[in-house]
């Protein structure tokens, strides 16, 4: 098998894989609407709308109280 053949098979396999992954992702987004933490994806818009340093967080990285 020369490099051109490896290239051709590699191209085909990865393209198929990526297409399947992308469509699976689309399906996942619109079917579940929420990520695994239970947040609706659309809530993430609030990351911009409430972005002052004292604003409520969408999902804090820890439960430590802000002082």
């Amino acid at each position, binding site marked *: 098998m020369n*490099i*051109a053949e*490896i*290239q051709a098979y*590699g*191209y085909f396999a*990865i393209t198929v894989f*990526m297409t399947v992954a992308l469509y*699976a*992702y689309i399906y*996942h987004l619109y079917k579940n609407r929420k*990520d*695994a*933490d239970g947040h609706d994806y659309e809530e993430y818009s609030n990351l911009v709308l409430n972005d002052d340093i004292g604003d409520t967080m969408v999902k804090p990285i820890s439960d430590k109280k802000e002082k």
Partner: protein
Amino acid sequence: MFHWLEKNPFLFSVGVFVVIAFAGLIEIIPNFAEASRPVIGTKPYSTLEIAGRQVYIKNSCNACHSQLIRPFKAETDRYGHYSLSGEYAYDRPFLWGSKRTGPDLMRVGNYRTTEWHENHMKSPQSIVPTSIMPAYPWMFTNKADIDTAFAEQLTVSQFFGVPYNKPVPMKDGTTKVVKMGKSIAEARALALEEAKKVAADMKDQDVKDAVAKGEIPEIVALIAYLNSLK
């Protein structure tokens, strides 16, 4: 299922990189395995021609002039045979350009002479009255950098195996040897020898005097390069 990708900055970055690197891997790397071989008749550039090529690059001639003839009747009528991959085997960097504000120069050596270039570079409008090309008077006084041209020859022969001082096949079945100096002094002498031939066809007295004194103005090197484009 996709959560790890959305939340972990590191895995996310790896994911992005894989997706964007994929095209390059497929498109570029295999083509390099079969790097373009020179076609018969394509020979490496001489020291003076490389110096001229550097003048061409220094002044970004490629901003307005392409060196790529596409396989259309209109283009082959105007500029000659369409370009072949192997003809560019010694072009580092390639000078295809992306805009034809002026005409293509891929085979300009076939239909323009030293004298034509001399007049044209001094005053394009003296030859083409409505030309929008600027004049390049400084090329008649600036000296070509032969040492750097020699360094470039050495680099391509040492790192990329460009065949200097070796017979290269020509279209008519004969072979040609493009010489490269063994030392800086020899390289300068070779370039000067070639420059004298170009200067013999020129009219500018200052350029002729400079070459007689052993100096090589940029214009002489540039014309040597342009004449080599065939």
